[in-house]
């Protein structure tokens, strides 16, 4: 897909630059995959923009997932894997979220499929999603302590 020299010609990046140039924090090209790191306050508006744009048409959200970079701050990375069926293109959006205030605006209003993904991240990673219609634990019991996928949670669990 995209190599580093072509980044500036990439239509996705150009469109985002036109829309809100201050949203982009960093561009990463690795193994043919493009990652656009954005500031977390722009995540929902940007997703809305990318889905609604008639040329880009990122109508399909493949996946939302989180990585814990503990003890580095901001410790959480949220990865959104977007897919455009009409252009057969994909892109990864990434937002960094600090550990002392792990809140991001929910994208359920943009893609309903994010509902369970965000619930799972809340369950296993402990990131809260503002505006989520039903933010409860997904896989673990309601009275479970801690968030197992965090790096400071031992593999064998708390005993």
């Amino acid at each position, binding site marked *: 897909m995209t190599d580093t020299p072509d980044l500036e010609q990439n239509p996705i990046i150009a469109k985002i630059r036109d829309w809100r140039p201050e949203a982009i924090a960093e561009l990463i090209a690795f*193994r043919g995959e493009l990652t656009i790191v954005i500031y977390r306050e722009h995540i929902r508006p940007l997703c809305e923009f990318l889905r609604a744009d008639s040329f880009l048409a990122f109508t399909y959200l*493949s*996946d939302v*997932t989180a990585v814990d970079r503990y003890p580095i701050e901001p410790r959480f990375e949220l*990865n959104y894997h977007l897919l455009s069926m009409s252009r057969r293109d994909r892109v990864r959006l990434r937002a960094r979220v600090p550990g002392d205030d792990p809140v991001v605006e929910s994208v359920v209003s943009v893609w309903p*499929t994010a*509902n369970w993904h965000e619930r799972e991240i809340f369950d296993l990673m402990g990131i809260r999603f503002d505006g989520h219609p039903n933010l*409860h634990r997904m896989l673990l019991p309601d009275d479970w302590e801690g968030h197992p996928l965090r790096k400071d949670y031992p593999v064998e669990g708390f005993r």
Partner: protein
Amino acid sequence: MTTIQTAVGPEKTMVLNMGPQHPSTHGVLRVLLELDGENIIKADVDIGYLHTGIEKTAEALTYSQAITITDRMDYLAPLSNNLAYCLAVEKLLGLEVPKRAQYIRVLLTELTRIGSHLVWLGTHAIDLGAMSVFLYCFREREELLKIFELVSGQRMMTSYFRIGGLSVEPPVGWTDHVEKIVRTFPSRFDEYEELLTKNRIWMGRTQGVGILKAEDAIALGVSGPSLRGSGVDYDVRKYFPYSSYDEFDFKVQVRTEGDCFARYMCRVGEMRESLNIVKQALTKIPPEGPIKADAPGIVPPQREKMKTEMEALIYHFKIFTEGFAPPPGEVYQRIESPRGELGCFIASDGSPKPYRMRMRTPSFVNLQALQKMVEGHLVADAIASIGTLDIVLGEIDR
């Protein structure tokens, strides 16, 4: 979650708890249904009964060791899971797999697809009252499992695909067994269709039931045959070809009705197309050639070399004690599993263990569509809708 937030109120409706031990939920799925008579007003899905923390466990294993736990997510299609994971790690490493291994991978994953669809067809038919199809489907699946046992030594938890290729050279004459399947299966599929496709009861139970519109399906992230039954031709094998799928000639099965019958027709058509791909793969696979990439330090050396070459011995020791370290970075590899888009996201920090391994499992996402499919319909149709989504709870809960 123990209760449901009722939409109407307890004086007018009844809450019915379906599962987690209900046979038609294909595992341990719990659905809470708010009923007005026999009509479903609201459905709430409760999952997590099979959660084993596979993603967390992977962080404590080396890249090669983690293959074994990918088998255990979608236990009906272990080879598809192996493939998604191996392709992701190979992408991370920038490793090119020999063509012969790629073709064998394609052949085996397509056989897996047939096997998985057979289980789906049998259990779905049994849910809707067609008992005999189940027995036929499992008879055929047995032949597929024999092939997996032949090549990998395991019927189900195969772990046959390894990073850089395959684990061992398939035994001499294994293709004869595959050829037999290619020869005999089309008539077996005709048999199922004779039992079901024009069967009035089957048509009555599936046509116009559990309708999922294309725009809803896309918004809900549905993929695989469940999406193609709604008229969207998204198939990862065509959109983003992997493992030499672009060299194969096959049609993507699409139906526009979006009901249970459309999804049934898609899957039956897919089984025939898979056989077609298997047939092509048989002609493409060269009789001899490497099955592992030439990547010392990543792919374990051959046994003979270890006895004659010092380097091979050192690499062998290092691979199995500390593993290998891919460069830091993140990759997302999607493949078309029998259930839909199976994505493997791996974040590496440059150590021999995956820093974060995430599986985007199609069943998990597809199950979200259940609410849309059943609300406003009858309880009996909910059984058909759950069956038609082809969920595997092992991969939903991970």
